[in-house]
């Protein structure tokens, strides 16, 4: 079957063939990262900014060269920021280094769950939009928070499935699905907490526009194979959503026609009432 070509993921008027975004952290080696990128074929790669560590003489140069060679669009993040001010400063530094106005906005409110700070993320989003950024905020599935982010000018939202790095999959499916229904025109990317391809497939079946993964791939025993599995799952879920799933029913319905069934009297040879 040929790939659909008219189903691009559109984020801030940029079109991407893939609906999968991939993080670049926690791989055991650069070659694993590169091969996982190849296998996942992602729309974008997420990156961060960090101080040069004392043991490093490279200052991220080889990492950055490696990523540039993949020729994938870059989505910088503000990971680790705990205040709106830190996030805005980090975003400004990222725009200068990575030459993109796209920013994955993270403002962490709790160090145990790494839950987004809803107040800080809205404050930062307002300021970043004012400064011309295209903001993709990491948020919860809370509808009021999402409304505030849309009001702030965010054209994409990235609700969590579960706390970062847990791999638990969607912890609040009902709220996620309600968010999808309440914001039908906003691209929604499920970010954080996805652990299995089935989780990714599930949220795509619900109509989410994409998933952002990192640990689920990088900490798999075989990250390259897992990257490929996720790519297939995201595609399968997206296709299922577009195909329009059947309606779930309470009662059994025979799929084989009743008409012509043997061992019945002639009078029962008529269409089933159901």
């Amino acid at each position, binding site marked *: 079957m040929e790939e659909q070509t008219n189903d691009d993921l559109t984020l801030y008027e940029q079109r991407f063939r893939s609906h999968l975004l991939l993080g670049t952290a926690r791989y055991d080696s650069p070659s694993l990262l590169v091969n996982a990128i190849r296998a996942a074929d992602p729309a974008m790669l997420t990156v961060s900014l960090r101080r040069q560590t004392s043991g490093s003489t490279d200052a991220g140069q080889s990492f950055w060269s490696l990523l540039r060679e993949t020729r994938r669009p870059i989505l910088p*993040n503000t990971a680790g920021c705990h205040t709106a001010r830190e996030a805005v*400063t980090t975003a400004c530094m990222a725009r200068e280094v990575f030459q993109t106005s796209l920013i994955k906005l993270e403002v962490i409110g709790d160090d145990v769950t790494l839950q987004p700070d809803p107040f800080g993320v809205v404050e930062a989003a307002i300021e970043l939009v004012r400064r011309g950024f295209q903001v993709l905020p990491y948020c919860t599935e809370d509808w009021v928070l999402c409304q505030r982010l849309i009001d702030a000018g965010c054209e994409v939202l990235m609700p969590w499935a579960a706390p970062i790095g847990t791999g638990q999959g969607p912890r609040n499916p009902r709220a996620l699905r309600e968010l999808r229904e309440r914001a039908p025109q906003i691209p929604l990317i499920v970010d954080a907490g996805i652990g299995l391809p089935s989780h990714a497939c599930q949220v795509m079946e619900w109509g989410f526009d994409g998933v952002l993964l990192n640990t689920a791939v990088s900490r798999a025993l075989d990250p390259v194979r897992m990257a490929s599995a996720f790519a297939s799952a995201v595609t399968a879920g997206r296709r299922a959503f577009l195909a329009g799933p059947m309606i779930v029913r309470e009662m059994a319905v025979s799929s084989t026609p009743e008409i012509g069934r043997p061992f019945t009297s002639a009078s029962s040879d008529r269409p089933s009432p159901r």
Partner: protein
Amino acid sequence: MFVIVNGHPHPLPEPRTLAALLLLLSPLGAFAVARNDEFVPRATYDTCDIHQGDRIDIVHPAAGG
């Protein structure tokens, strides 16, 4: 007279500008700078004065999720 560079004390350069400090530090590759938690655009390094106790952060591309 020190500034704090990435959390560590560093002597103030002469002249006391961010450009002079960066000339001494020679950060490798792609980088960006914040002074006292505020972004400093590359085009303003020459005119960005630094003072005793200023906190300078120099960051580079890194892996991220």
